């Protein structure tokens, strides 16, 4: 079993401003239906930037994201954010954007207001600022579920940002979007990361990972195959699985 305990990115020598960092995962496993879908993962993430989580289908990427966000309980192991075990108190300072956005059956504005209100920050100004930030300014009155796929995902992002998260988790948010819509999301995420929010981003898109990532966690068969700075990962992947994945081979 491989211990991936690097601190990334190296150049951001200062420890992250977030009191949620570092993320330390020890011996994390998740079993379902008699199968070990996450297999004794240990990992430490610190500093700022965007960590890309990659790996073939079925590697356990989405599961890993849900586990560290505390949406599902681990079978074994320990997840700590800034020294505190994952739980509602920690989760309050994180936000997760799903591959398929779960929008309320309401207007665009009401979707954002809903979260702002639950955090005691509801105001038309705050909502409009968030909608502006994701390029949906002035669209508040529209029905959320009648937006295009890309717009829906940007609204989901605005709603996630409404919680003012210290950590933003993204689960293949652009997987079903056209390139232009995907690029719009990337631009927003890069902007969010620059403003100090720690981002953990699950993706299949190698180009996207190259553009956004400061480091890459590569999962295969429920384990971490490698955890490498992004540049190094794409130039000279150290694991056979990552090498095969990047060269387009089928990795099982």
């Amino acid at each position, binding site marked *: 079993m491989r211990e991936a305990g690097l601190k990334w990115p190296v150049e951001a020598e200062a420890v992250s401003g977030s009191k949620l960092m570092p993320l330390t995962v020890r011996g994390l496993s998740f079993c379902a239906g008699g199968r070990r879908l996450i297999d004794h993962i240990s990992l430490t993430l610190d500093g700022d930037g965007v960590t890309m989580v990659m790996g073939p289908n079925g590697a356990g990427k989405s599961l890993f994201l849900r586990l560290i966000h505390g949406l599902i309980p681990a079978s074994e192991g320990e997840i700590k954010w800034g020294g505190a075990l994952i739980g509602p108190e920690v989760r309050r300072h994180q936000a997760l954007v799903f591959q398929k956005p*779960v929008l*309320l059956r309401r207007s665009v504005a009401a979707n954002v207001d809903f979260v702002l209100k639950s955090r005691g920050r509801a105001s038309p100004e705050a909502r409009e600022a968030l909608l502006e930030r994701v390029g949906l300014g002035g669209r508040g009155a529209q029905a959320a579920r009648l937006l295009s796929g890309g717009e829906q995902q940007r609204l989901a992002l605005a709603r996630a940002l409404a919680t003012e998260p210290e950590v933003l988790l993204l689960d293949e948010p652009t997987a079903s979007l056209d390139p232009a819509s995907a690029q719009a999301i990337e631009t927003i995420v890069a902007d969010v990361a620059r403003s100090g929010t720690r981002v953990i981003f699950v993706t299949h898109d190698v180009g996207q990972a190259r553009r956004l990532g400061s480091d890459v966690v590569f999962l295969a068969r429920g384990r971490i195959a490698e955890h490498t700075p992004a540049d190094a990962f794409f130039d000279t992947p150290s694991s056979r699985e990552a090498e095969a994945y990047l060269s387009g081979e089928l990795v099982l």
Partner: protein
Amino acid sequence: MHEFGEAIGLAFGLVAGFDADLVEIVGLSLYVSLTATLIACLIGLPLGAILAVARFPGRNACLIVVNALMGLPPVVVGLIVYLHLSRAGPLGFLGLLYTPTAMIIAQTILIAPIVAALSRQVVEDLHTEYAEQFRSLCLSRTEAVQALLWDGRFALMTVALAGFGRAVAEVGAVMIVGGNIDHLTRVMTTAIALETSRGELPLALALGIVLMVIALGVNGLVHSLRMTATRFAYA
């Protein structure tokens, strides 16, 4: 069946003539059944939502009981409410027997389980879709239930309609606790029962037709609301 022709003619005459007694009876029917529906929703919707969202020991037993209560015979509800509201009963001092309030109570008891059981299903389906997002947002259970009820509002209108339909159509409960008193507790169904027992079948049928038209109107209204909501993907 010449009765049908006669009944349709009578029904038309009653409505067109704006018959004062008919207006009073229809008004009371709507007042009693709509109020009962409103109260049954205030009780049944949160109860259904809690049953949909919460997991606790005995939940399955609760579901079975609520589902079984959907089949409560109106006359049994009427009898139970009568026994409570009768002067000889524990709540007799309130003096509510043979008042519209007694009828509202009986119909509320009759339809609250229907609202609870059907809304449980609606909310549970919605919750399946929203649960992870809500957990991620760290919503309290109250916030989650409120959001689910609001987002299910158009589907839940149909639930309320099912309750209203049962309330406005039942005769057994209101007959016992209301007493079918002219100008006080006479509603559409008890009036129909009365005219039937007087052998005035065409008039009874005419009242039945009026009741059906009212039910059609209410259903049409709710349906068009839902269609509008669906157009905006709110339902």
